[in-house]
């Protein structure tokens, strides 16, 4: 009797172990599929676009002829719009985070703002485009300009900056603030001289993520009214503009093969910038974590 139970148990155990191994293979397969998709995407883009990359491609304006078209207008548009959005989001976002963390931690208004930020982070980006079109373009009469685009994207990435800056400020040890107050510093002196320098790497990491998000956004700027064909460089805050993702979108949706090659080359430029920024963010985060634990 005992012998039978023993073999029965052994048989079941073998089956359980086999199931375990199958499941492990399945999990591994899921990761491999995800990584393979990334590899396929990168390979496809590189093999299509790498030959098209040249100095001319970076400095030419768009054209009806694929091999003469370039991304200068889109590149400058992206730099202007994202630069503006980044600076605005930095000031507003860090300011909001300081207020929420240092001035009014448990007040009712802080709680409302906190819930509100969490919900804003989940609003589809295209809705921000509608907001930008109605408020900045039509109501404030800024036109479909660099300024209106920068403001729209600033609002879009604001929750990212606020949440990152809040986490960075929260990680500042209270003893540092108390030391400052004990020396007779005012609240702002403590924030400016102690809290901000200490939390700066964390804030910077959040800023990089926010800017890379802004750099890749297409839909809100299309809805806001950015152009798809711009044969000139933006010459001021009220100039009309296009950005790199919109240029890529435009080339992708054309039927001619030549424009698809251009789209791939544009994607390479965009990805190189984004991956560099992400690598910088990861590097900063690691450095920051080491100091926080050290």
């Amino acid at each position: 009797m005992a012998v039978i139970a023993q073999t029965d148990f052994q048989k079941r155990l073998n089956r359980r172990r086999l199931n375990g191994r199958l499941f492990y293979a399945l999990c591994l397969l899921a990761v491999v599929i995800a990584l393979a998709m990334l590899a396929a995407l990168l390979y496809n883009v590189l093999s299509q676009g790498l030959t098209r990359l040249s100095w001319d491609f970076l400095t030419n304006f768009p054209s009806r002829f694929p091999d003469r078209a370039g991304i200068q207008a889109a590149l400058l548009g992206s730099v202007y719009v994202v630069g503006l959005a980044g600076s605005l989001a930095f000031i507003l976002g860090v300011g909001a985070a300081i207020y929420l963390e240092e001035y009014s931690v448990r007040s009712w208004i802080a709680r409302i703002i906190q819930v509100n930020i969490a919900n804003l982070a989940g609003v589809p980006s295209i809705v921000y485009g509608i907001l930008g079109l109605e408020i900045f373009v039509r109501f404030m009469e800024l036109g479909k300009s660099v300024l209106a685009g920068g403001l729209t994207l600033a609002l879009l990435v604001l929750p990212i900056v606020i949440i990152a800056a809040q986490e960075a400020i929260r990680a500042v040890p209270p003893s540092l603030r108390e030391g400052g107050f004990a020396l007779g510093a005012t609240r702002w002196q403590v924030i400016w001289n102690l809290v901000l320098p200490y939390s700066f790497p964390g804030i910077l990491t959040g800023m990089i993520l926010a800017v890379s998000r802004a750099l890749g956004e297409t839909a809100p700027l299309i809805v806001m009214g950015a152009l798809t064909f711009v044969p000139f460089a933006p010459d001021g805050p009220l100039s009309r503009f296009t950005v790199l993702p919109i240029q890529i979108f435009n080339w992708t949706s054309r039927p001619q093969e030549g424009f698809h090659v251009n789209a791939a080359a544009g994607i390479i430029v965009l990805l190189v910038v984004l991956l560099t920024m992400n690598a910088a963010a990861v590097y900063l985060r690691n450095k920051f974590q080491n100091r926080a634990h050290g």
Partner: protein
Amino acid sequence: MSFSSIRQLATGEAIQRRIEQIAGPRWRRYLPERIIKLFLFLCATTSIFTTIGIVSVLLFEAVLFFQEVSIFEFLGSTRWTPLFSSKSFGVWPLITGTMLTSVGAMLVALPLGLLSAIYLAEYAPDRVRRVVKPIMEVLAGIPTVVYGYFALLFVTPLLRQIYGEISVFNGLSASIVMGIMILPMVSSLSEDAMQSVPRSLREGAYALGATRLEVATRVVVPAALSGIVAAFILAASRAIGETMIVTIAAGQNPNFTLNPFVPIETMTAYIVQVSLGDTPTGTIEFKTIFAVGLSLFVITLGMNLLSQYFVRRYREVYE
């Protein structure tokens, strides 16, 4: 030192006076503080004004739209042709288009995301995790327009080689690629939830003789379920609001269908289509984007609130 000056020291009056000698009168030191605090407060209220702006713009314009088009037609008809001469304003084709691509994306992202989260949280050695996680994060950082390019010019031709009846624009290709796009979100949020399950629970199960599979699927996943469900809902909401992949790869034909092989149109793709066209602002054709935008906003907001509710309501609390 006289008695009175000692008393002054004790009450801090001397210190006060000394500070005023060095740093100027009290009001001059505190006025900038007040101004700074006000400025920071205004920064913090920007997010409130953004929300008010979004809600009032969508509501205001949608009310104007519904004065011209009955809400019963909007929610009751299954024909969406506002840009044609014979206009019809039934939003259902856009909703089925959105449902088709989002459900398809979830069918890809859900199993792959959950399985890779289990791999990362339960199986992967630390060395592998440190390499794989950042690479997955790269997937999350790729702009959606790039995924759109990938869907239209790589995945669709591949699918058409396998099954010739698929149109150039179709929901299937957009769904698959959108699934890959939201996979890192599902995976990293689910993994966070699993990592926060206490070690003792796993060790208890191992002590009872459970295998890794049994620990993962019968102890860790149920314990982390609230976080995992929240991750799924957030990812679904993200898929519903996603724009560029579906605009590029799924087409601009508001067909009332759940067939993944034919061109369709999502709510987001419709908004882009109108924005790119030459429809004058103020016309009824243009106002449709606000009604569609409001529907989109309400659906995604509802799902985000549901996700937050799941995290709060069903979170297992461990000491």
